[in-house]
Each structure stands twice: as structure tokens, then as C-alpha cells.
């Protein structure tokens, strides 16, 4: 294969503002890596972007079948964007199953790159296809680019030492090369990444680099395309230093930062569960920040480890997903009762039960706010995007430490695995909330409280302050076991008042778009991107539509009632059956709260929201 310096230099270059590409293939085809590399390169190139990985729960469903299809969608733009895009402009289908599953989403007239090397009769059969879509006319209306990627990779790597199997594993980098060429992206960040990743097996690194280069060159040589495209760097982004960040990574960093800002060491107990496990994995590599990570025997032990850590004077934290939240419930009640700081991260996924482990949902809201035996109030903070996860995690740590309370941080599968550029904060600008430990035994009462109603934190090991904590009801001052009816009532009210008091320290969220008018779209969590795109577009077109996004979902901030009164209707899109709408209706019974539920394991599309809002405007 010849290498030209700048293949395709003579082809016409078209500029696009935004492009959505979906990579789809078998779980074994490495589509997640391909998508992540493309995103990463685009981020470094200066585009704004949002990603949506969508993969099966099975590690390897039978190869070539529809359940085994893994997809990664990336939206990259020269404008400020909020979502991974409703419909792809480009679909890469590595096999018939990937084509069959994803074709319906591709924009009419969109580019379809198909790996014909994987379209034998047996492949079609595995994908449950009676006829070959390449021949039966079902691809009419798309710009189909047929490439036998299997064969091209074989040719490109003919003179390497790699086995036939290893060669085929390089297919995804060939594909990535084609896309880099088509969208005029440099290959070097990926080349560097490969060389670092396979430092111990340089022959694998070089094989993939060769495949990447071959794909890049092929765009030109094989005359696959009539032209190339360019999506210039985004100049809407505020100035600053940026990096690309995924949600779970940001949570892990937020926990490290939160602990340091509180002058504490982080003590993290966790049990592996999709889609939260990468938080544990990330923190396990942060030991030099003074972080202890324990992989517990189960979900219950994980939170109990963290509670033990908090009791000794560290910042205890744990992370899980829905089924694990259910298991941790009793221990959360204990943390409420003994009033120690604790951060519980819930990366929500589809349920009930095991549900849809790799798909997203927001249906743990009521569980987070109310889902414990008896009166066990806890503050709940919700993350709206991968980069926002860092700030929200620090906020959860702040509340936990200042109010001596467990706090739930809600994120979801869409945020956990999604990526976006993150404008890095100045370290000095981060809030500081140093924890204090009482060491003065004089007059010490374990359940005496400060103005925030927080009790004092005392480390075991402090002389003269030996005392007992536990889950039994305690005297409101001495902390001794108390079954006294009035005392119990007082304690229930005090715990409630303490948590509700969190709202005195948080701002009223800002309304974006119309400040009053027809519809206020209220969101929380990962619906942020779709809501922002929909509302901002409609507002720009002159509609009286505004939006408000909640970070603190419990307690709710002050001032919402007044804001709601300024609109005819408050629309609440949620990936559940209307849980936030239910809370709002009970808190603000006179307001016109309209629920818009979606429970498909998928995020909202912008156009769905636009249609919904428009239907309300017409009423």
C-alpha cells in the first residue's frame, strides 16, 4: 500500500457545523474504543462534543447476532452542543446485525459505511435476515459505501507477524482511519494512545497503527467518497483549559477533590456493579491521593465499610446502581441515625430488578428521596452531564461534611459512560469546607448540635470522649438509648429539620430562556442536554419557553413556587413514570405540573421534546 503525504488533498472539502456518527458492530469489534478514540481526537481538535455509548449487558452475546450489537454515537460540532444528537448522519455497520439494528435511526440520505467482508450467507442468518440488504434495495435512499474491511486489513497487515485472528482485531482501527480521513482529523493522538496502551506488545500497537494508516489512505486511493468534510474547531466554548471527561471519571475525581477540600482522607467501599464499577476502578488508581479503596464482599458490606471509615474521621463513600441501592438501604438508615458524613453514588440504570444494566433511566429518584424504612431523610444531589459530575460530587461532599449526614448523588448510565469537553476549574476557585473534629471533652454531649443542626464529629482515639453510637433511638442530647415518646418525636423532627435546612445554603436555580410565559421545562439529571437544545432553539425562534434545571433534588431549593407561577405550565420530562412531577405536585399543589415520561432505557431526543412543548403551546 502506498502512503501519500496528504491523501485526498485534491478532493473538494465541505464544511459542516455538526456531524453525528454512529459506530456499530459486534461486541467483539471494539466499537466502544473506536468511538472513544474518535471523540477524543475531536475533543483535542477543538470541537465541542457529546457521546452516547450503547452496549449490550452480555459481555459477548453470540457473535454476529442482534443482541450482540454494540454502538457508540458521537456528536461533534463547531458550536456549543448539549446532546449526542437524535439521528446519525453517518452509520458505520461492521456486520449485518449492526446494520439491521441501527439502520432505522440513520438520517435519510445519510452516509452508510458497510463492511461487506462480513456479509456472507451465514452472517445474514446470524442476524436473522432473509435477504441481503446490500442487494434487496432496502438501502435505497442512503449513500452506501461498501468496503471489505476484513480483506483490506488482511492486505494491509500481510507482512506483519500477527496471527490471522490478531489481524482481524485491527479492523476497528482501519475503520477509524477511514473516518479520520473523511472528517479531516489527525491520526496522531490515536497513534500515541495505541503505542502507550500496547507498550508491552509493540507488534500489536504497530499492527493497529498500520491498519489505522491504511484506512486513512484508503479514503483517497479507493475513491470511496466524492469529497471530504471538515467540522472546524468550536469557537463558542468559553476560554480556558479543556480535557475530555466521562461521567464516572468525573465522579471519582470529585470524590478525591471533595475529600481534600474537606481536609479529609477518602475511604471508599464498593462492590462491582454495572454501570458504577469504573468509579471503583478509577479510585483504586488514586491511592497516592491518600485514598483507600475496599472492594467489599457485597453491596451491604461496601456501605458498612464506608460508615466504619467515616466513624474514624475519614470521608466514607460508596458507589452503586439500583439493585445495590436497594441492598444498602438499611445501612443508609443507620448513617441517618448516627449522623455521620457519607456519600452514596447511585449510577441509575433501567429496572426493576436487574432490569437493563447497561441502559439508562432516572427511576431511582423516589427511592433516593424516600426509600428507607421509617423517617430517614437524606439530601439528594443530581448530576446533569459528565463534566457537571465533578462539581455535583464536591457539592455532595460539602453537604455531607457540613451537615453530618449521608448524601445521595444521583447520576445515570448515560452520564457514566458519556463524554464531553470539560473546562477545568482553577483549583483555588473550588469551595473549601474543612471538617472540624471536637477534642474538647469539657461539656461534650454527643447529640448537641450547631446552627446547622449538625452534631460534633469525634474520632475514636480522642481521650476523654469515649462514647457509643448506634441505630437505636437516642436521647437528643446525651446520645444514650432512649425509648421516650417525646424524645423520639423530637429526634424525628430534628433530623427532618436538619436535612430541610440544606436549602438555606443553596441558590435558587436560574431560569434560562423566557423568564415567564407559556411553558417552563423543568429537568433534573441527564435530561439536561436534550432540554437545553429543545428550549434554547424554541426560545430563539420567539417562543415563550424557559427552562430550569435542578441540581438539588432534595430538599428542593427555595423560590420554585414563585418561578412556576410565572408560567402557564411546568413540563417535567423524566426517564421514569413521572417521579419528580409527583414530588413537585405534592410540594406545590397549586401549580400546573405536566409529566412527560420516557422509559425506553434511552435518553430523550431533542425533537421529541420540541414536539411535546409545541403541543402544549397549541393548547
Amino acid at each position, binding site marked *: 500500500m502506498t502512503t501519500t503525504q496528504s491523501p485526498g488533498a485534491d478532493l473538494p472539502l465541505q464544511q459542516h457545523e455538526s456531524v453525528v456518527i454512529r459506530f456499530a458492530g459486534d461486541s467483539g469489534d471494539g466499537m466502544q474504543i473506536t468511538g472513544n478514540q474518535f471523540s477524543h481526537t475531536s475533543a483535542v481538535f477543538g470541537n465541542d462534543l457529546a457521546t452516547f455509548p450503547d452496549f449490550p449487558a452480555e459481555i459477548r452475546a453470540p457473535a454476529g447476532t442482534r443482541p450482540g450489537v454494540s454502538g457508540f454515537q458521537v456528536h461533534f460540532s463547531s458550536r456549543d452542543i448539549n446532546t449526542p444528537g437524535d439521528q446519525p448522519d453517518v452509520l458505520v455497520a461492521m456486520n449485518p446485525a449492526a446494520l439491521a439494528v441501527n439502520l432505522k435511526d440513520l438520517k435519510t440520505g445519510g452516509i452508510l459505511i458497510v463492511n461487506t467482508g462480513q456479509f456472507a450467507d451465514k452472517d445474514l442468518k446470524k442476524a436473522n435476515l432473509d435477504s441481503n440488504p446490500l442487494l434487496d434495495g432496502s438501502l435505497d435512499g442512503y449513500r452506501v459505501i461498501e468496503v471489505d474491511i476484513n480483506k483490506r486489513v488482511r492486505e494491509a497487515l500481510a507482512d506483519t507477524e500477527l496471527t490471522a485472528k490478531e489481524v482481524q482485531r485491527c479492523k476497528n482501527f482501519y475503520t477509524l482511519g477511514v473516518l479520520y480521513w473523511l472528517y479531516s482529523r489527525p491520526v496522531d493522538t490515536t497513534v500515541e494512545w495505541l503505542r502507550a496502551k500496547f507498550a508491552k506488545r509493540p507488534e500489536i500497537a504497530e499492527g493497529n497503527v498500520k491498519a489505522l494508516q491504511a484506512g486513512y489512505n484508503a479514503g483517497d486511493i479507493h475513491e470511496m467518497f466524492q469529497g471530504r468534510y471538515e467540522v472546524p474547531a468550536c469557537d463558542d466554548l468559553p476560554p480556558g483549559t479543556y480535557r475530555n471527561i466521562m461521567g464516572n471519571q468525573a465522579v471519582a475525581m470529585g470524590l478525591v477533590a471533595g475529600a481534600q477540600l474537606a481536609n479529609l482522607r477518602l475511604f471508599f467501599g464498593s462492590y462491582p456493579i454495572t454501570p458504577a464499577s469504573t468509579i471503583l476502578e478509577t479510585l483504586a488508581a488514586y491511592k*497516592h491521593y491518600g485514598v483507600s479503596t475496599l472492594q467489599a*464482599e457485597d453491596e451491604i458490606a461496601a456501605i458498612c*465499610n464506608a460508615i*466504619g471509615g467515616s466513624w474514624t474521621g475519614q470521608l466514607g463513600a460508596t458507589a452503586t446502581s439500583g439493585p445495590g441501592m436497594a441492598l444498602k438501604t*438499611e445501612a443508609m438508615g443507620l448513617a441517618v441515625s448516627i449522623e455521620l458524613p457519607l456519600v452514596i453514588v447511585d449510577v441509575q440504570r433501567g429496572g426493576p430488578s436487574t432490569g437493563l444494566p447497561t441502559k439508562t433511566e432516572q427511576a431511582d429518584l423516589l427511592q433516593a428521596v424516600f426509600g428507607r424504612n421509617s423517617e430517614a431523610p437524606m439530601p439528594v444531589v443530581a448530576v446533569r452531564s459528565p463534566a457537571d459530575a465533578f462539581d455535583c460530587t464536591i457539592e455532595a461532599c460539602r453537604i455531607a461534611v457540613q451537615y453530618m449526614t449521608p448524601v445521595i448523588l444521583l447520576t445515570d448510565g448515560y452520564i457514566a459512560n458519556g463524554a464531553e469537553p470539560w473546562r477545568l476549574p482553577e483549583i483555588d476557585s473550588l469551595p473549601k469546607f474543612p471538617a472540624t473534629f471536637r477534642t474538647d471533652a469539657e461539656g461534650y454531649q454527643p447529640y448537641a448540635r450547631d446552627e446547622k443542626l449538625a452534631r460534633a464529629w469525634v474520632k475514636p482515639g480522642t481521650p476523654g470522649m469515649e462514647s*457509643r453510637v*448506634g441505630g437505636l433511638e437516642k436521647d437528643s442530647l446525651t446520645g444514650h438509648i432512649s425509648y421516650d415518646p417525646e424524645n423520639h418525636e423530637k429526634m424525628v423532627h430534628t433530623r427532618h429539620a436538619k436535612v430541610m435546612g440544606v436549602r438555606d445554603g443553596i441558590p435558587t436555580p436560574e431560569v434560562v430562556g423566557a423568564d415567564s410565559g407559556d411553558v417552563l421545562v423543568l429537568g433534573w439529571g441527564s435530561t439536561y442536554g436534550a432540554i437545553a437544545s429543545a428550549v434554547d432553539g424554541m426560545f430563539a425562534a420567539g417562543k415563550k419557553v424557559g427552562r430550569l434545571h435542578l441540581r438539588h433534588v432534595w430538599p428542593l431549593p427555595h423560590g420554585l413556587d414563585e418561578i412556576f407561577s410565572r408560567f402557564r405550565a411546568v413540563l417535567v420530562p423524566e426517564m421514569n413514570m413521572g417521579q419528580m412531577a409527583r414530588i413537585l405536585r405534592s410540594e406545590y399543589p397549586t401549580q400546573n405540573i405536566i409529566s412527560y415520561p420516557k422509559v425506553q432505557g434511552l435518553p430523550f431526543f431533542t425533537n421529541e421534546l420540541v414536539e411535546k412543548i409545541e403541543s402544549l403551546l397549541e393548547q
Partner: protein
Amino acid sequence: MTDTKTLTKKDFQSDQEVRWCPGCGDYAILSCVQGIMGGLGIPKEEIVFVSGIGCSSRFPYYMNTYGFHSIHGRAPAIATGIKTANPDLSVWLVTGDGDGLSIGGNHMAHILRRNVDVKILLFNNEIYGLTKGQYSPTSPRGLRTKSSPMGSVDAPFNPLSFALGSGATFVARTVDTNLKHMQQVLAAAAQHKGSAFVEIYQNCVIFNDGAFEDVAAKGVRDDKMIDLRPGEPMVYGKEHDKGLRFDGLEVVRCSADEADVWKVDTGSPTPGFMMAQLDRSPDMPRPLGIFREATTDAYEDLVQAQVQRSIESKGEGQLHDLLYTGDLWTVEG
């Protein structure tokens, strides 16, 4: 720091009224534990007692140390967190047969296999006391209780076999009616570096009175029990005339002069297992004492050593480095 030399039993008695039933075996255990604490040379504030739920789990309230009365079965997980976060604390865990082997069986297995340096006192009364008399995971088959009116059909756990099977590095048994023996065993447990599991036969006067009477009653215990003392011959009987020796994979009775020396430093838990199995043989003495004592790294030390190594090799992590790494790019204003 308090002066440890002057600490006496009284220093470890809290101001809380003890609320077990009169005659409960828990009193003897509490008194014994309070009695040995002063001799450990550990400042009172560095001692913590953690428990789960059950009669025995009220224990921390009665100790004038730091205490944590947690939730049913989870004390091992909480104690693991405490000891790992602060290895300087002397951590004691008080549990029962229901708390430690039924609802918390999973956590018990894992604290033992990890060898967290926690002293675990399992009060075995073969019954659920606090919930008023249901059969427990150590109740013998056939035991008639409120929840087993026709007799329990469950096969019981042998707590020692459970602990040995979980890889516990120190395993022992004692009984509430023999204060001196209890003191010795608890003192040995306190000296052990790593998880120490001590089963304590404890009489529940209300719901399972006399559960250990046949072997532990004062008149019969010398002939019905054998105290396993590391390095000493396995001799028992009022007259010190009876002995035990190994015969292949069996333990057999013999005269005192033929008795084998009891060794726990073989590295293998097998002799301990063989002794634990004697519980099932009506004509064999019931073993007490130390079933295993082995040395290996404690979990919390390994965890903290990794943190230390990491700091030494990478330098203490600064927030700036946490964020500003990887591929960064700048957007100019």
C-alpha cells in the same frame, strides 16, 4: 492520652445500666472482658467495641470505650472499615450465633479470610434470644423452639469449622462458666496480630437454659471437656489421666502418657478441623482452647502499605495534577 498503667476493671465499666436477664451468661463475659482490658496496655480511647444486633450486641454500651452498636449481621463489615481506616485502634467485635453466622455469615467469612486485625467474640447460645426464642444456625437438629414446634430440621453450623474454613488465623473456644479459661483465651486473642475468632459458649437462661450443661457443668466438665493448649500434651480428666492422640485422619482417646502434643504452628488448619469435628462424637471430650494460631499479613496493613507505596512512588497527589492531566487543549479568549 490516658495513663494505661493505672487502668483497672472499673475504668472499663460504663455508666449504663446493664440490661440482660438475671443469670444470663453475658454478665460473666462482660466482667471478664472488662477485667482483661487494663492488662492490654492500650489507652482506653484507642479501644473500640463494635456489634450487630442481638442480646450480645448490647455489649458496647456497657464498655467505657468507644462503641458502635450497628445493624444486624453487619458488624464485621463496619469493623473492617474502622480498622482499615485507622489501624491504630484496637477493634473488638461482639456478635452472636444468629448475628454472626446467619444474617451476617457472609461478612463473617470475609473478615476472616481477609485477616483484618479484629478480635471477634461470638457468643454462642444456640438460640435467638432478643426475638424471644427461635432456633438459630447453631441449634442442634431436633431442637424444639417457638419456630420449630416439631423440632428444628436444620443441620447446625460448627462455628469453629466455619472460621477455620474461612481461613481465620486465630480460632479458639471458651465457655462462660470458666472465667479463668476465658481470661487466658481472650488474652491470647488480644495478642494475636490478625483476625481472632473466639466462640464463647454462653448460656441463655430464658430460652435455651442448659444448652451446654452436659459438657460444661462444673461437676462434669473436667471429664467432658479438653483444653487445647499449644505446645502441651492433650490431656484431660479430673485426674489428668486421659489423653487424645492422632491416628491417621482420626483423633482417638488414649491414656495421658500416650497423648500427642497439641501443635497449632503447623501452618495447616487441619488439626483444628479434626478437633472441631469431635463435637459430633458423644463419647469424645468437647475441645476448648486454641484451635489455630498462624501468622500472616493483616489486611489493613496491606491496604495502607499500598497507599504509602503509591505516595512514595508518585508523590503526594495534588488536585491540580488530578485534573490537569491527559490530553489538554486551550481555548483562547
